[in-house]
């Protein structure tokens, strides 16, 4: 639609302003990671990356995020099924509770977990006499990841459940299938896209988690230090190149996941 006679100056100005505003806020910070890291040459970048503590940090991030994702996708699937199919008193309260973790500051989440599982915690004190300590281990990181990414997979899967036609399940039932057979052959295939995008979302978020992890892990280098924690620690020690190397890897990884989520969008859509 034409707003003015002749050339509309508002168009190039608005687009230009948008880019200019994003420069210092988004573009330049991202660019700095790559510019700085490769300034002294790729050889140095590689050397910083190959430090045993750096490699351990990356591996730990991947493993803890992986298990947190597996759990949250399975749980999200189960919760979406129950909350979509069954109506009961308190259902909406449950749905809200599941979505709560995203509203809580991650530091608060980590703190809460410490209060529960720490040596003097509500449950932790019961485990201590047996020599079991959950906090300051990889398990603690997994628990923290589960907490903060709890609603992500659920939030992607449940809408698909809600809009899925009941007649598909009814058809399967009248044909003679049990509830499990229907779920496996009919419901699950239609959820494929939501499950994959939910898993990717959860995984990416878990890898990037910092606030809760730094509290529950103890930040022990080479033992419970995830990649984001590694960056923080190395920066504090003044080892900028080391921090930068991992930062680049994490940034590239995030771009990769985001691209998959964005460009494979259609495949994820339910038909």
């Amino acid at each position: 639609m034409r707003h003015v006679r002749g050339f509309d100056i508002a168009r190039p100005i608005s687009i230009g302003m948008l880019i200019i505003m994003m420069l210092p806020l988004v573009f330049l910070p991202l660019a700095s990671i790559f510019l700085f890291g490769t300034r002294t040459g790729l050889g140095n970048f590689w050397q910083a990356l190959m430090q045993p503590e750096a490699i351990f940090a990356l591996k730990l991030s991947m493993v803890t995020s992986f298990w947190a994702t597996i759990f949250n996708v399975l749980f999200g699937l189960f919760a979406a099924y129950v909350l979509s199919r069954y109506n009961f008193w308190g259902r909406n309260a449950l749905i809200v509770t599941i979505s709560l973790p995203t509203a809580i500051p991650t530091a608060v989440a980590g703190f809460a977990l410490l209060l529960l599982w720490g040596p003097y915690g509500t449950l932790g004190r019961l485990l201590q006499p047996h020599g079991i300590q959950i906090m300051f281990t990889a398990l603690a990181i997994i628990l923290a990841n589960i907490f903060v990414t709890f609603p992500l997979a659920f939030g992607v899967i449940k809408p698909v459940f809600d809009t899925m036609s009941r007649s598909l399940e009814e058809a399967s039932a009248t044909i003679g299938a049990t509830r499990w057979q229907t779920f496996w052959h009919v419901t699950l295939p239609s959820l494929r896209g939501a499950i994959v995008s939910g898993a990717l979302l959860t995984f990416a978020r878990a890898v990037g988690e910092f606030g809760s992890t730094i509290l529950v892990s103890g930040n022990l280098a080479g033992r419970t230090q995830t990649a984001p924690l590694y960056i923080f620690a190395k920066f504090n020690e003044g080892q900028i190149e080391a921090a930068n190397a991992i930062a680049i890897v994490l940034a590239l990884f995030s771009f990769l996941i985001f691209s998959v989520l964005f460009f494979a969008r259609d495949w994820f859509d339910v038909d």
Partner: protein
Amino acid sequence: MAQVARAMQNTVDPKSEGTATMPAARVAGVSKYFGKTSVLQNISFDVAEGEALVLLGASGSGKTTILRIIAGLEQPYTGKIFLHGKDVTELPARERGVGVIFQAYALFPKMTVEKNIGYGLMIRKRKRKEIKKTVNELLSLVQLEEHRKKYPSQLSGGQQQRVAIARTLAYKPEVLLFDEPFGALDAQTRTHLRREIRSLLRKVNVPAVFITHDQEEALELGDRIAVINAGNIEQIGTPAEVYNNPATEYVATFLGAANILEGTLRDDALDVGGVRIPLSNRTGEFKEGQHLKLIFRPEDVVLSKNQEGLANHTCLSGAVVEETSFVGAFERLRLRIDQGVGTTCEPGDMSYLLTTEAPERSTAKPVLATRPKPIALSTPLRRLDRVFIGLTNFTILPASR
């Protein structure tokens, strides 16, 4: 009472003579409530082997609920369902062995046509060879062999429906239940598919229950039709029976256009707004002073400029032509009953006696008539022409309430 008796006569299944022939499906005394609202009241009917029964009714009449209760997708408040003699009322849907064709077909979107059809056998853990053989037979039965590897989204509506039917036939269902199967299709495909499905059903000899709100579809599809109104079956009969001898006013008006003239029974004659029609052979059924309705269809009307032209048909009255319109294959007329001078039916052997209490008295309601094109062309009529109305078929019912 007489009306109830007449309706009951048509709802108790005339096919079940004694216990010799067991019906393929029986619905007995089913009622259903949604909350406090009664949706179905005392529904009972049989479906015979190889029969196609149509449940015809408006939206909200409860016909879909009946189907879902037979399938096991809903539970009745009272009543029982029998399939081939077995009481399945307490069984869940998957143990009943019914085949349901849903309104939107409900084909599994991520499975090919082959896999959809083979689904029933696959979950029953049959051997791969057996599944393949049955799927091949069904594919050729519904003529979809070239589409076997396609997905439902790649098929037309008619093709999807054939897959849905094949999918249910794979596990040899007791009865097929069609939920408004032609709703989503255009008129041409609809007619074509109706005939295809009828011949398919005859071939496989599986009893079927159809749901529809389309009276033309019901007349073409069903061996018998059950007309449902607000949770009650008003009449069950063959298409000819329900169309020509409607048991209630609802059935008369639902199945096609109907002229309804109200009158009172006085001295063994029906008094319709001053026009009196003797009911010599029907007085046993109705009482003096009872309000009755005379019902006849537009195509039951014969028109003639003089009474002799009505031949053996019942002469109703004289009338004036108000409007004529040409509708292609036939002519539609609107007439006003008018007992003016010169247009009173003379008594004769076959005609009913007509006497007027007051001359120039006209009934309030117009009469709708249709005439086939050849007759309209040979004896043209225009506005304000005076004619005699004769009836080839009519029904007299007690006026309700």
